[in-house]
């Protein structure tokens, strides 16, 4: 189909898996940090803010390199984790980690907007009805921020799909294991005349983006449903 070989289809499947896992796995953390940034005042908030943006500001290769230093089997965290049997290096999980980290700033920023826009008066109303802060968060604040969460997830997913620099630096491109669509496209572009093969994968990316948009709009509509 489309004249793509099994390796390319494997890359497509892997990209989807990596992006979905990365997005879903980092989402709770992104929500937490976004809420922190939107609603709390604390020392070092500015620094946290900047740290969150860092993966966006740094060239992806650097992020990949830092990941390697940290989460590689020889790295501080990676060494510890590998004792626990959790290995990122040269696994699809590593690609997901890289994608998640690159997607993180986009998600946090978008979700934070939702928390900032949510009406504290409604939270007060819930509080008077006996809801604990945690219940208020779950039932009022988070639903109010849901459009932003969806937007953040879409941004994150898209970024994860397109992530290349950090991924190839951190986990290289082992076909079927860590070779994502972008790595495959990159590979094609390295040979003279590889453009048409690369173009097909670009097309696949576009279709996936369309799908992601369609799903997210559908969810958003479902969720927004009957609100004011």
């Amino acid at each position, binding site marked *: 189909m489309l004249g793509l070989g099994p390796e390319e289809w494997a890359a497509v499947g892997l990209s989807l898996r990596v992006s979905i896992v990365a997005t879903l796995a980092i989402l709770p953390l992104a929500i937490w940090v976004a809420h922190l940034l939107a609603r709390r005042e604390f020392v070092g908030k500015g620094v946290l803010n900047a740290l969150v943006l860092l993966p966006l500001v740094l060239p992806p290769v650097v992020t990949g390199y830092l990941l*390697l230093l940290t989460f*590689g089997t*020889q790295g501080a965290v990676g060494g510890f984790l590998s004792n626990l049997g959790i290995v990122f*290096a*040269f696994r699809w999980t590593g690609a997901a980690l890289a994608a998640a980290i690159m997607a993180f700033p986009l998600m946090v920023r978008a979700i934070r907007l939702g928390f900032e826009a949510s009406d504290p008066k409604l939270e007060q109303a819930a509080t008077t009805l006996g809801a604990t802060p945690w219940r208020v968060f779950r039932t009022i604040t988070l639903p109010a921020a849901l459009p932003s969460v969806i937007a953040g997830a879409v941004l994150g997913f898209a970024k994860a799909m397109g992530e290349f620099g950090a991924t190839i*630096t951190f986990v*290289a491109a*082992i076909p079927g294991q860590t070779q994502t669509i972008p790595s495959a496209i990159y590979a094609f572009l*390295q040979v*003279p005349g590889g453009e048409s093969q690369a173009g097909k994968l670009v097309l696949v990316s576009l279709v996936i983006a369309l799908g992601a948009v369609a799903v997210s709009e559908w969810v958003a509509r479902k969720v927004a449903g009957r609100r004011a």
Partner: protein
Amino acid sequence: EDVVIFAASSLKTALDEVTKGLPVRISYGGSGLLARQIMQGAPADIFFSANEVWMDAARDAGAIRPESRLELLSNALVIVGHEAVPFEDMLASDGRVATGLAATVPVGIYAKAYLERAGHWNTIAPRLVETDSARAALALVARGEVPFAVVYASDAAAEPAVHVIHALPELPDLPIRYPVALTASAKPEAEAVMEALQSDTARTIYSAHGFGVP
């Protein structure tokens, strides 16, 4: 106005030293990228490629002056290890081997051809970790993330954290050459820089960085 050189990334250390004091600006990148850019009218005066394929492509596109082309440097492939283990042990082990994308990135293409010819490809292929550049592969070994890598001798020479455990013999029909040429739109001042790139001092520096100067 400064002379603009588009040079393969792997040349950076050597070339920075060679051109010290010269009125040049060097844009480093993958050879394929540089060639495409020159073909698209990049304001480069000199193209210094890490392989002949992309120089040929540029030539076919009329983007360089063929008469100025010179196969200035050569390189060799070596197998490096994080530890200095015997080559036999390396072959016998199941440790991963990093190198550039075997299908596309120059170092990977060479590695595949050289290993095939040496009869090691089938043992090594399943253990490959493919990267986007030779430097990335080297870094993996230097960090100890991957025990072995197939890289250029010049890279290996620059990295103290790796040990050369085997040098692959050069294939006469697929020599590793670094051609340099003036682009079609080269400024007149570029000729002098071309001279400087070939000077004896320059050759000494290249050698010191592990390149062959045929």
